[in-house]
């Protein structure tokens, strides 16, 4: 575990892997650390936003002492199914990067079981990890200035669905009409940490 300062406003905790991120997030939820206002889990790190005047070293010390139980956080444990029209602009590029055919990419994406590891980038944007390493691809060299809402995409070890149109650098596989983020729903996000996700091919309309 490594502690990196974000001036006087945060402590970035770097851990070995995603499993440790998930375990530490659960530990922080069970044992809140004084002065920590918000926790932002990510792929290899947890950012602890601290209240003004908090001593970052004291936070680091408290976090080091937390008991970590692997698999402590099973999340809500629910499974959602997201229908996708696989007609994304980057499907050919992804096929080339993975060595699969276009069809093979679709089959791998729908065949994998995905789990939301954390949220970020935008409200309701869940970073989902799967069980098929063939789908690991880099982000695009140039980000797009506008990716349409509902775009289903890949980057690194993750898949994600853009909850609303925004700039983005992920590889676009297709799109979905599923309501990923809805403020009239409680909770508003469909893809919360711990939720399992299956993608299916949408019926052609």
């Amino acid at each position, binding site marked *: 575990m490594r502690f990196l300062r974000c001036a006087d406003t945060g402590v970035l905790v770097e851990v070995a892997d995603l499993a440790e991120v998930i375990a530490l997030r659960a530990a922080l939820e069970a044992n809140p650390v004084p002065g920590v206002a918000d926790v932002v889990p990510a792929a290899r790190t947890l950012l602890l936003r601290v209240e003004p005047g908090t001593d970052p070293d004291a936070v680091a010390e408290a976090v080091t002492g937390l008991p970590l139980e692997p698999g402590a956080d099973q999340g809500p444990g629910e499974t959602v199914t997201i229908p996708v029209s696989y007609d994304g602009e980057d499907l050919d590029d992804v096929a080339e990067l993975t060595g699969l055919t276009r069809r093979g990419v679709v089959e791998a994406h729908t065949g994998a079981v995905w789990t939301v590891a954390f949220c970020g980038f935008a409200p309701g944007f869940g970073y989902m990890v799967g069980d098929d390493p063939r789908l690991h691809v880099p982000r695009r060299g140039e980000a797009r200035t506008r990716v349409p809402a509902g775009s289903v995409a890949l980057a690194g070890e993750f898949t994600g669905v853009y909850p609303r149109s*925004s700039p983005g650098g992920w590889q676009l596989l297709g799109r979905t009409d599923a309501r990923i983020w809805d403020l009239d729903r409680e909770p508003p996000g469909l893809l919360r940490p711990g939720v399992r996700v299956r993608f299916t091919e949408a019926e052609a309309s």
Partner: protein
Amino acid sequence: MSGVRTRALEVLAAGPMTTVQDTGRFGHAGLGVGRSGAADAASHALANRLLANPRDAATLETTLGGLRVRARGPVTVAVTGAEAPLRVDGRGAAANTVLHLPDGAELAMGVPERGLRSYLGVRGGVDVPPVLGSRSTDVLAGLGPDLPVPGALLPVGPAPAAPPNTDHAPTAPVGGPEAVLRVVLGPRDDWFTERAVDTLLSGRYEVTPRSDRVGARLSGPVLERARTGELPSEGMVAGSVQVPPGGEPVLFLADHPVTGGYPVVAVVCSEDLPGAAQARPGTRVRFTL
């Protein structure tokens, strides 16, 4: 006391950009929801202090002035932040001062000569419905109250019990041709060459017009990375100096993305964040330790 909640601010003009802001949204980072809130938290707090409001009462944050409102019912207001010339029904009025607007009075904000963001606070706060616990508009996330447009009626909340205990707050001028911002290196300064870190601390940067509440995009010497590869996305704080592949830094402000995939070379100290938020396009920026 029924039927008295009819006080409101009627927006007549919103200037280049006006948003409703409070101290921000807490506790929803796990859903990917950022903090948002007043970009210059100090000026926002001052407006509320002058009016004896709770610190999280919502104000109007304007960008380069241009806001005009009409009082619907008598309201008490204060304008802080970038010092825009103020007129109440055509007569000059002072900033950082408690102003009593009778029903129908019009407050007009000109364009500030220095600084970028001014805050119009109202006693009782701007009482639009909160979204996920905050009245802040997050322009990146598209969360929170709609942008006030001409014709909008912004309800004013009930006045707090305590009366204002001062009518004027002397303040240092906000903004200027150069912003000197104290930083702490990291969390990812090890992704950059030593020369890049020296360049950050000695180079002259300038705020470009491609700047908003998300961040101030800077032009100036590029910062060279010491390593290639991709950084796994990680949480960001306001004040982060993030360096995209092009090498010119972006200084994140209130509506910054919750997570980002480019390395942060240094973070501006919280005390200097208001100064960063007041740096208008063309402002020179120097970073110091």
